[in-house]
């Protein structure tokens, strides 16, 4: 039963992160939503490792990948924000919708 509890926690975090990523306008706030979603992956990966197959390292490696993804996501996100803010004074996604047209 504990496995389900951990996965439910992951699902809740993922849903909150998704809500934030979809509803926020500011690029920085969207990144916080994405971080929460990766956070959910960490919980799910760790729980899957411990409750399903602790004799194999796959779950742990997945958590390491998730942590790296988080670092890469944040660094790239801020670099892109800096670049677009410098070029066009833009800090919300609605003001950077060029590709939509």
């Amino acid at each position, binding site marked *: 039963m*504990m496995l389900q509890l951990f996965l439910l*926690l992951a699902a809740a975090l993922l849903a*909150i992160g998704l809500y934030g990523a*979809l509803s926020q306008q500011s690029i920085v*706030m969207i990144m916080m939503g994405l971080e*929460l979603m990766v956070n959910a992956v960490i919980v799910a990966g760790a729980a899957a490792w*411990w409750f399903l197959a*602790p004799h194999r390292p796959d779950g742990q490696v997945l958590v390491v990948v998730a942590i790296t993804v988080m670092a890469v996501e944040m660094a790239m996100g801020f670099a892109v924000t800096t670049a677009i803010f410098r070029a066009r004074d833009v800090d919300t996604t609605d003001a950077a919708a060029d590709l939509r047209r």
Partner: protein
Amino acid sequence: MQLVVFVVCAVGAVAAGAAVFRVDSMARATFALLASFVFVAVDVLLLHLAYLGVLVILMMIMEMVVMAVFMIMYMMNPAGLMPMSMMHNRRGALAISAGTFVLLAAGILLVRWPARRGAPPAEPTRQLGEALMGSKMLVMMVLGLALFATMVATVVLAQHRGRYDRYGDELERRVPDDPIRGGVGR
């Protein structure tokens, strides 16, 4: 006992995660996200992943403190002193995320999960290290490459001065002309 700690931390993580998008102050939002990460790290520690749990705490504190700097740099209302809404399509986002949660929860509760296979290792940290330097070497190499590419890409994107600004049009300067000079005689 473990169940109590888990439930407290799970509720804390979800509540702090929700608070991120509720509070006005950007500093508070950042530290709410940090609180959420720390609660999650405690739950990871409950799963006997001492190294990964502490690593999450270590990394997330550094990341969130750096994030706070950018938040204040790019947000119109960093301290939340003038409440304003920076949202679009709230209803749709709420519906989609609630739907996602219901779908995932249904899957979690309805699927017949397999029984646990194998015994946990005596030292999970050693298991991880040996995997990363052995059978999962490829993962480690890809992560290293990705991190390196990220470093280069972020500097290229965020920096507005190139080598011709620093070393002159003919690249003739021996010492770069930087707005802020460093400490080793440059």
